[in-house]
């Protein structure tokens, strides 16, 4: 699944099928999605945590599992940073840091929760994708971050 574009105009690709969708915000907060073939869906979506998104369409509530990939990708491990073996943990979406569970110098294991990021009202546990030592912690609890912002650098202690 792949979503490209910007607010208002998106391209959604899944299973090899691509759909262009124009999106407008309605006065009551719902979104109107208008597909290129004319079909429309109006509704709300609210992240409820654990990769789950609650959508409300025509008053009906359904839960969509955007599952682990989104969850994981709220931070992403970017290309090698300053030193080889460094893993940069960046925010993929704008959000707010709720909790930082590590400090510089801490050892972290692969998969360990390093911080909690709130985005779209969903609290997301961000895990280290590899073990190492926290080389840098660029954010503090309560801080707002832009999408793409560097939050943490984990240095491969073997590197």
């Amino acid at each position, binding site marked *: 699944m792949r979503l490209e574009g910007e607010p208002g105009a998106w391209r959604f690709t899944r299973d090899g099928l691509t759909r262009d969708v124009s999106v407008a915000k309605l006065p009551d907060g719902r979104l109107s999605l208008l597909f290129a073939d004319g079909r429309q*869906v109006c509704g709300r979506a609210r992240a409820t945590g654990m990769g789950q998104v609650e959508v409300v369409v025509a*008053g009906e509530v359904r839960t969509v599992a955007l599952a682990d990939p989104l969850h994981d990708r709220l931070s992403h491990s970017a290309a090698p940073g300053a030193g080889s073996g460094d893993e940069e943990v960046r925010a993929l979406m704008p959000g707010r840091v709720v909790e930082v569970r590590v400090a510089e110098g801490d050892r972290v294991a692969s998969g360990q929760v390093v911080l909690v990021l709130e985005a779209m009202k969903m609290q997301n546990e961000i895990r280290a994708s590899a073990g190492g030592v926290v080389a840098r912690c660029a954010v503090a609890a309560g801080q707002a971050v832009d999408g793409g912002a560097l939050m943490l650098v984990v240095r491969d202690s073997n590197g």
Partner: protein
Amino acid sequence: MKLLVANRGEIAVRILRACRELGVGTVAVFSDADRSAPHVAMADEAVRLGPAPARESYLSVERLLAAARATGARLVHPGYGFLAENAAFARACVEAGLIFVGPDPAAIEAMGSKTESRRRMHEAGVPVVPGMMKPAAAAREIAEFGAKHGYPLLLKASAGGGGKGMRRVESAAEASAAFERASAEAAASFGDGAVYAEKLVERPRHVEVQVVGHPSGEIVAVGERECSIQRRHQKVVEECPSPVVGPALRERICAAAVRAAESVAYTSCGTVELLLAPDGSFYFLEMNTRLQVEHPVTEEVWGVDLCREMIRIALGEPLTIGRPAMRGHAIECRIYAENPSRGFAPSPGAIAALRLPAGPGVRNDVGVEAGGIVPIDYDPMLGKLIVHAGERSAAIARLSRALSEYEITGVDSTLPLFRALVADGEFLRGEFDVQWLDRRLAEGTLLAPPRVREEDVVLAAVALAGGAAVPAGQNPPSSNGSPWRQAGRLEALR
């Protein structure tokens, strides 16, 4: 002239609207949980009763009378629930020099007693479910009863309850053996082997007749309501007319209801509840001596204003109801803050969004609003959706349309149940009885888990990725500079 509404929620709002249309001043009462509730905001005057618990607020006769005294209200309308069928409250109002908007306290009392009301119905010639007046001395008495009233019968332990010692008897041939077993079972369970027989009404429907009585002695029956869609004896959906009541049966049940009301010299709006057997025989269940939750379906189909009429009667004015005639079909859904997929667990809390349906044939009687709190202290009914159309199928289509516009978020609601109902074949054909809904819920054949559609996934992904540009005509947001927003790209969501 001023009327105090001794209630809250949608029924208080309903009564306040009727008063405003009649030019009668209004006094609302409220507990600490309801200071910002719609029924308070709608009244000319408002009086705090006490803390949230009903005992200390809406059920406190003393505080209600004090509120009436303090504001100089002349009338008291009890709504339904709380003190609506409490004869002592009605009497206390009268003794305090107030007009109680309802029947005479004696009528409330008589109909409030199971035995007294059955006795009066018997005298008035209103059928009650036949039953032996005393335990059967021998199996022969069971067979005699069966011969007289027809099978199947239900044997019940005199000392029993909770279904224990109950036994079905299909025919005279079974009577003897069933009596022995039931008696032995009763003796084992309750230490008393006494059993008696009652006629078993199978697959009954709950049908009720609206009556309007006047001190002049006139009593008008305003047709029936079908209330068989129940969850554990609690009505959930009501219709007018009943899909199984034709003109001849309607005439019979209305006549019986008028006799029932006459037996207690009924002088207000009231309802005679009946059990209707598949063969068209019917039996008195009880009389509700108040305005019913489901009164709107009668109002829509019969073109009457029951709430207004009730207040007018209390004010000593003549009936304006005339000889009403039926037109079309109406359905009411009771919308509760309950989750039908979780055993109807109550869901108190703050209502985030509330979008009400509108347009032709749609009536909203609602007691909450967006941003409001559903308190844990009271019945979790948010309001009622009532639709009206030319015939039953059109009413169901309209209901389905209205439900597609209805949105409640923040608390769970019973809306999913109604959406399932309007798509259910048995409901569409009107094929149900009082146990039908419980049966279907237990089977798990009514509430299917919602199926996620491709569009839902797109909606979820798009919303999380930033959704829409700013609506036309509004200013762009002040935040900017998010590189992600400039050329957003959210890859591999799944």
